[in-house]
């Protein structure tokens, strides 16, 4: 990471889904970054990066949201950190593509993309940390690597390694871990039959792993899998890895 970042605050882009459905994951992310010695700032006017619109093909809508996101983030300095692989992928790869036709926006997109990191990537690759935070005490977890982080950001080991270095965390192998869970953004409501079939395949593996907690790095996939586990009356719960690191297992969701 650039040397100048050592003196700069981290800009938290919390993502619209964390903001609206999982604020406790945002708080855990702040805890984790602060445990890592970072000062965290939250650009107040942030909204959505535009990924939902981009993925269904509504590129004009996506471009509008992306432009807003760029304006908000480009007005800050230092690293931009997200508790999501797929929104990071959107900012790092897809927003620059979307803006390629407009030289001013393209330059802005490149600047912002260059500063943007997914949380585990920032902690492990930039800060060089083995792990952070108090951890959850004794807990048995399985890790599902969400696809965009895994394949588009090459996050193959970062979150797993943070978990493995956290005292009390027993990570068990998730069979077929790299198989997509079937969320797929709006795919989950456009093709619910297929999305749910894929979810059930994933959940069979989750149950087979024996873990008490299914951990991931994207609340979107966790919302889908957690919703399936809850509907199936499973004892398994879902958590973002930031919640495990921050020791926030009883995170109140709706207070």
């Amino acid at each position, binding site marked *: 990471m650039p040397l100048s970042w050592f003196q700069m605050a981290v800009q938290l882009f*919390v993502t619209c889904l964390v*903001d*609206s*459905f*999982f*604020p406790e994951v*945002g*708080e855990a992310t702040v805890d984790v970054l602060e445990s890592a010695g970072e000062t965290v700032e*939250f650009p*107040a*006017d*942030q*909204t959505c990066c535009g990924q*939902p*619109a*981009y*993925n*269904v*093909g*509504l*590129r004009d*809508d*996506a471009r*509008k*949201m992306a*432009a*807003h996101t760029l304006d908000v983030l480009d007005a800050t300095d230092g690293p931009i950190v997200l508790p999501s692989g797929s929104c990071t992928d959107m900012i790092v790869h897809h927003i620059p593509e979307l803006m390629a036709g407009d030289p001013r926006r393209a330059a802005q997109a490149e600047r912002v993309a260059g500063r943007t990191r997914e949380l585990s990537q920032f902690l492990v690759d930039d800060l060089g940390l083995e792990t952070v935070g108090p951890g959850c005490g004794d807990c048995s977890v399985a890790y599902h690597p969400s*696809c*965009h982080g*895994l*394949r*588009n950001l090459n996050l193959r080991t970062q979150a797993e390694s943070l978990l493995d270095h956290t005292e009390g965390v027993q990570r068990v192998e998730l069979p077929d871990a790299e*198989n*997509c869970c079937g*969320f*797929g*953004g*709006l*795919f*989950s*409501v*456009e*093709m*619910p*039959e*297929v999305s*749910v*079939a*894929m*979810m059930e*395949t994933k959940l069979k593996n989750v149950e087979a792993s024996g873990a008490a907690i299914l951990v991931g790095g994207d609340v979107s996939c966790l*919302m889908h899998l*957690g*919703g*399936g586990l*809850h*509907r199936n009356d499973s004892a398994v719960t879902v958590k973002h890895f930031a919640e495990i690191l921050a020791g926030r297992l009883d995170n109140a*969701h*709706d*207070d």
Partner: protein
Amino acid sequence: MTIEPVTFLGRVKRDRESGVVIPVSEAARRMSAYRVAASVDFPLMEEMRDRAREVRLHTLANLDKYLAQFASQVEANGGQVHWAADGDEANAIIRQIADDNDVRTVVKSKSMVTEEIDLNESLEAAGLSIVETDLGEFIVQLSGDKPSHIIAPVLHKTRYDIGELFAAKLDRGFSTDPAELTQMAREHLRREFLTADMGISGCNMAIADTGTVVLVTNEGNGRLTTTAPRIHVTVMGMERIVPTFGDASAVLEVLARAGTGQRLSVYTNFVSGSRRHGDPDGPDAFHVVILDNGRSRTLGGQEAEILACIRCGACLNICPVYREVGGHAYGFTYPGPIGAVVTPSLKGLDEWHELPYASTLCGACVEACPVRIDIPKMLLTLRSRAATDGHLPGWLTFAIGRYATAATHPRQFRLLLKAGGVVGSMMARDGWISKAPSHGANWTGARDLPQPAKQPFHARWKARHGA
């Protein structure tokens, strides 16, 4: 080859209910594992993937030149070249060749391109008898079915299904032993090879500088199809070209490894024309039908790179959607991720706009593809055109449009989240919504939805840190 019913989800429902998806899923998993094992066993795999990709992209960038070179080489070798703009033209050309040569019986080796143009139906309508000689295709033909995978056409059938089929149609005893079943087909097919007037093959690659057609098979039926009958016709998509033997060898290094996990398929045939003076066997005449059928339009568009595909099937095997829905759900000759791009780009989005959405964009296909085709990127460009052409459901376009407006007006956005929290708390019980209205029911049909937070993150931040 179009498959009813007309909607993707309609076909998914039918095939999941009938159970044909189960063997597909298991076999696809196995084939993926074979591919991975073959790559581990071959230290040069990544390098050869790059090399094969280079060959394919270089060829596409110079396709006109290499096609012309291939055609003149075939002619120099004594063969005849026919150019077909679409399936009807190709079928008419082949019927004409049959007619000119008093052909009554035809044997075929496996060819997806002839499925694409419904060649069998066309020839049968002209009174010809056609026999598929690839074991899988033979089973498909015997059962009046359609292939569900580009290299393993009967992935959706079990050996019990095939045992019953052979007992009924070949008048043989019932068996579920693969070796016995293969022997039954073999004995039946041998007679067909020896009496057929014409052999029709596909084409895995066409080598430009020698005018050679490369056929990759595991059963030897390709060899018999191209040598035993009097006439040999190869049907090829115009993108099958590679410049040289060396280039063909680069593709062969990755083709079988990616497809079946074999180092090389059992038979690799190089066909460079009809029987020459002194040859003990071979056909009297060799014809090549080069098919466009939408390919030159694809070549000029945003999905041109899909033409680099070498038809190994690796993307089908790894695809988590394909594994849950099987091949017929994709509705046309080419299923899986490759089909989700090829079908709409060859045949247009008007009829096929659902297919680019039949994916979570997980990217497993790019990772598996021996020539590293970025399928998700093409699904996204196709989606963008589908949306522009008005193929998205109205509610979705409306909802995204409103969300985009809110997301560009932060105060509105914060109000929206607050409203979501209020509405959510009315609908939720113990933090979960189990029955959402309207299109939300698509979510809550089989999944609970967590209650939206009464106090979103930005409000919590503000409460703690001030504005």
